[in-house]
């Protein structure tokens, strides 16, 4: 294969967090395909679940495989933490992350390596999709929200199959459930990603409906990421916007009440609207004050957090 020359050492990281039933059987399938992708390949499985069975199964598997590392975390930390833990123990130039359940046809994984080119991250996009319309709509709605809030376009950020340059994971700091948003965090640091179409696996086509809590949590995660990426150096811009809108509403209301008091002598003291608008005023002030505390945090830690990432320094100065 001519593309293998591109990557010397590949680390395959599999965060084992949810839908863990096929994990063990899938390992052999992954291994068969991934061994072809690079000269040397290592496998790292990180179990971050409360289930003890998977710990035992993985330990057993590890005894029979020599290039498999197994890291057992003692509770469920979320995929992002698991991937970071795996990254700390890997040595590849490129990292291929795979979900512990089948999302795409494994035969097509080499496409990622073919198409990553100069990009830092190649995200698999499950396409063509074989699953139900309702699943596809969920992906579409999430894509729409993501684009509205963050201004960035990713067709299928829910897919866990990604090929990443090692330096990206070294720089990006993520935790908890932020794994799906890794490309956004990477973009903030100047790492560009591309999407590669891989055919969806037949095993991934069952209908998915989660309970309301899961959807709410996703939405909250999305808002957190937008806050962290867009306002991470200027919290007051965010809190100030919300807070000053609240203050403007209250001031308009209070002005109207004052006008009625002066023009028509309507007493303020028996109007509940006064409480409402005072409440808005107080809320606005509190939000802005919280923003100021945020700015203080940033200011006192700014020296340690560089905002920019340098691609290259060009200098033809011979003397050092």
């Amino acid at each position, binding site marked *: 294969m001519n593309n293998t020359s591109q990557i010397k050492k590949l680390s395959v990281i599999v965060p084992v967090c949810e839908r863990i039933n096929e994990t063990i059987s899938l390992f052999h399938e992954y291994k068969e395909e991934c061994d072809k992708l690079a000269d040397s390949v290592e496998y790292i499985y990180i179990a971050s679940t409360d289930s003890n069975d998977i710990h035992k199964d993985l330990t057993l598997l590890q005894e029979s495989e020599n290039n498999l590392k197994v890291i057992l975390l003692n509770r469920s930390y979320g995929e992002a933490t698991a991937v970071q833990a795996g990254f700390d123990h890997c040595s590849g130039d490129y990292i291929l992350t795979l979900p512990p359940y089948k999302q795409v046809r494994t035969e097509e994984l080499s496409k990622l390596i073919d198409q990553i080119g100069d990009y830092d991250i190649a995200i698999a996009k499950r396409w063509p999709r074989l699953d139900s319309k309702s699943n596809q709509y969920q992906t579409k709605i999430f894509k729409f929200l993501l684009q509205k809030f963050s201004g960035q376009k990713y067709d299928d950020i829910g897919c866990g199959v990604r090929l990443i340059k090692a330096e990206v994971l070294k720089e990006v700091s993520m935790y908890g459930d932020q794994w799906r948003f890794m490309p956004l965090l990477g*973009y903030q*640091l*100047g*790492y*560009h990603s591309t999407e590669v179409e891989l055919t969806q696996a037949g095993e991934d086509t069952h209908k998915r409906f989660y309970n309301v809590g899961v959807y709410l949590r996703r939405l909250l995660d999305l808002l957190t990421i937008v806050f962290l990426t867009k306002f991470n*150096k*200027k919290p*007051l*811009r965010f809190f*100030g916007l919300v807070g000053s809108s609240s203050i403007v509403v209250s001031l308009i209301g209070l002005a109207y009440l004052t006008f009625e008091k002066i023009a028509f002598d309507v*007493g*303020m*003291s*028996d*109007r*509940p609207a*006064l*409480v409402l608008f*005072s*409440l808005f005023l*107080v809320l606005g*002030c*509190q939000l*802005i*004050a*919280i923003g*100021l*505390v945020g*700015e*203080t*945090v*940033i*200011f*006192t*830690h*700014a*020296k*340690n957090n*560089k*905002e*920019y*990432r*340098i*691609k*290259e*320094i*060009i*200098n*033809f*100065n*011979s*003397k*050092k």
Partner: protein
Amino acid sequence: MKSTQHSPPTLSVIAPLYNEEDSAPLLHKAICDALDPTGIDYEILFVDDGSKDSTVKVCTELCKQDPKLKLIQFKRNYGQTPAMAAGIDSALGEILVTMDGDLQNDPSDIPMMMSKLQEGYDIVVGWRHKRQDKLISRKIPSIIANRLIGKVTGVPIKDNGCSLKVYRAKIMKEMPFYNEMHRFIPALLSVSGTRVAEVKVKHHARQFGESSYGLSRIYKVLLDLLTIKTVLSVTSHPTSWFAKLSIIPFFISLLSCISFFSLMLSGDNLIISATVTLLFFTLGAFTISLGFLCELIYQKGNLKINQLALLTSTTNTQLSETHKPNE
């Protein structure tokens, strides 16, 4: 420390470039023309802020011709202040100059500003005193903004927006510098007892391209001003700043309380005024408690203003002994 082949340069000129393929060669030439006759050992740092045109290509060519020129290329567009920060972080000189990349500043002012610095200042700020911009959309908002910034921060600079500034590297490298802070450098530096001077500089109209400024800028400057005021007061006594802020809600609460008692005498409905009184009282208490929170944040942070103050007290003597520009 005599100036030898291998010693770092005395002066570093930093210019952020964003889509400036036309200006870059002219700017490079202007800087060289201004500094070569003075005999100062200098370096030029161009920071490419993720330009979409051929700025990088043009500058790489320039770098090949001039070993004094260094190009720092960003991975993507980050903004003017991060670009300046990158230049400041990798500059080797003891004196730093920042300027616009679009030829609106004139490098021929640099020697004059440097000699001003030698008079015993830590930062010399340019004042575009014959500004070549539109009156209504640029000049008047700028005058109001500068007055306001001077009032709030207590550092009366006539032109905070001018990028052409000369600093001592030791102080600048220690200052936290992010967002759109470049506008507030004099105010920020003032916390460490920095001596600020302002001199008139030349200003040219833009030769290439249009500058983009919107009305949303006013709102941003106001928020930034609030930020600067807060972070500046945090460095000395956060509790008292937040306590001062809390006077307003406490005062409203007091007024409302008075109306409560007057209503009580007349036997009117009391619930509304009681609620309003308590609401604003709560806000006052909330604000004061944030002051304590900020004390905690400052104590746990890594910014130590007293060390900065030490820097400003020593730099002047050291510098005048070692490097004096030949004039």
